[in-house]
């Protein structure tokens, strides 16, 4: 039996991210107080007051902050993907998010590369925002 890939436990701080992905939109949180974008964690921002936070659609363009090519997969569900790339991406708007870079050439990736979002539909219930290297 093929192992099933993990799905997120959707919560109030991630619901709109995953729901908008189904509509092929990338949405993250935005602090009206500090004019900063983020996803889930306020750790990389100065945003504090939760009353002044809203969700905004962003461009889906950004740069690779760091990445790793995975050879020892995160469980049986990812064996077929090896080698695959997981990256931390700084969106042009400032939020840092983590996802996969889809590429045929895992050797040809560098920190600072420009990337853009694509939406990988798993089924009617779940779509994952992933990234490709911009041409």
């Amino acid at each position, binding site marked *: 039996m093929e192992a099933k*890939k*993990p*799905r*997120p*436990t*959707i*919560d109030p701080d*991630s619901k709109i991210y995953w729901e908008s992905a189904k509509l092929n939109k990338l949405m993250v949180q935005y602090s009206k107080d500090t004019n900063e974008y983020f*996803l*889930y*964690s306020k*750790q*990389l921002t100065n945003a504090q007051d939760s009353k002044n936070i809203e969700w905004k659609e962003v461009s889906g363009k950004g740069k690779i*902050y*760091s*990445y*790793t*090519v*995975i*050879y*020892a*997969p*995160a*469980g*049986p*569900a*990812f064996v077929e*993907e090896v080698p*695959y790339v*997981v990256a*931390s991406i700084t969106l042009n708007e400032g939020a*840092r*998010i*983590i*996802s*996969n870079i889809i590429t045929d050439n895992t050797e040809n990736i*560098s*920190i*600072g590369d420009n990337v853009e979002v694509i939406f990988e539909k798993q089924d009617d219930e779940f779509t*994952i925002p992933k990234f490709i290297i911009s041409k």
Partner: protein
Amino acid sequence: MDREPCIVGVSDFPLTDRGRAAEGNSELTIQKYCAEEALKQAGLKFSDIDGLAVAGMWGIPGPGLMQPNLLVEYLGIKSPKWLEGTNIGGSTFLLHVNHAYQAIKAGLCDTVLILYGSLQKSNMSRVLGDRPALYSNQFEVVSGLPLPVGGYALAAQRHMATYGSTRETLAEIAVSTRAWATMNENAAFQTPLSIDEAISSKPIASPLHRSDCCLVTDGGGAVVITTHEKSKDLNTKPIFIRGFGESNSHSSINYMPNMAHLEIATNSSTKAFNMAKLSVKDIDLTMIYDSFTITVLLTLEAIGFCKLGEGKDFVKNQRTSPGGEFALNTNGGGLSYCHPGMYGIFTIIESTRQLWGICGKRQLNSPQNALCNGTGGVLSSSTTLILSKESN
């Protein structure tokens, strides 16, 4: 009465067969053994213990969620006055020492037992996947980031791109740590490792290869802390807790503020040095939690043993090997001695033994001050301790 807190007993758990506990052990028997050995070394009894600190990753879900309750029951500690069960990852036990120091100094209790035990190798409970996609790490789990190694790999890649460190830099650390392990008869790996072997070991999550990753072993440890006054009647010479600090910044690696600088280690060590009124120049032995080789590189720089980005020169040409200029991880570390999942307690045990001068073949020449640093989670939490033969 001189309430200055000091370490008076330590023990680790003997392992065989590349890091396995003998058959017939549980996480509880491992901790009981370590507690008895550490108390015997000091000349104390269980009835002297009035404070307990414990953390681990076993028995969850279940009684392992409340380990202080289970250990007090199992060991028969009557009416403890002080309990500590905080878990911030492998750095935890240094935090337990910090908190025990404050409790003893304040008179809340006199004698604290700190405990850890694990059977993760025998139980084969350590896996790269199967982490629940919860809270801030739901995004990386869905992306297939193997944890914790993938998190450390992201930091390593960022450090290399920022400062020009290389796979050879990381190999220097793996090789020197193994060289120390050849002199520890309780180490899981005691055969020397070469730079070429380290570099050509199997890739796990680039840029990290097998030789950059800590072992998966069983194991356990105990540390006993009491007042300077009480220590005068005991078997061992007191090892004083001169300084400490703790800090954290994130849970998921994606939210580490700067992946090329372990700022929390700068924070925790600065507090420790200020309290001890000592500086890096005064440290004779440095024990850094080597969950991965990159952890050591990041921590050396963050503490200030060298400037940010200069770690690659600092560890070059086996400077941290036996006989080298800088004594680092003399027990063979989590990379080659043992790594039961939460390694931090072993930095305290080795530092204490080195300061006592009982380390046999690997004994340093009369060290006075030792620095212990623990990292927990995915570079999430940092704790620093400065231990010394002399009190503040």
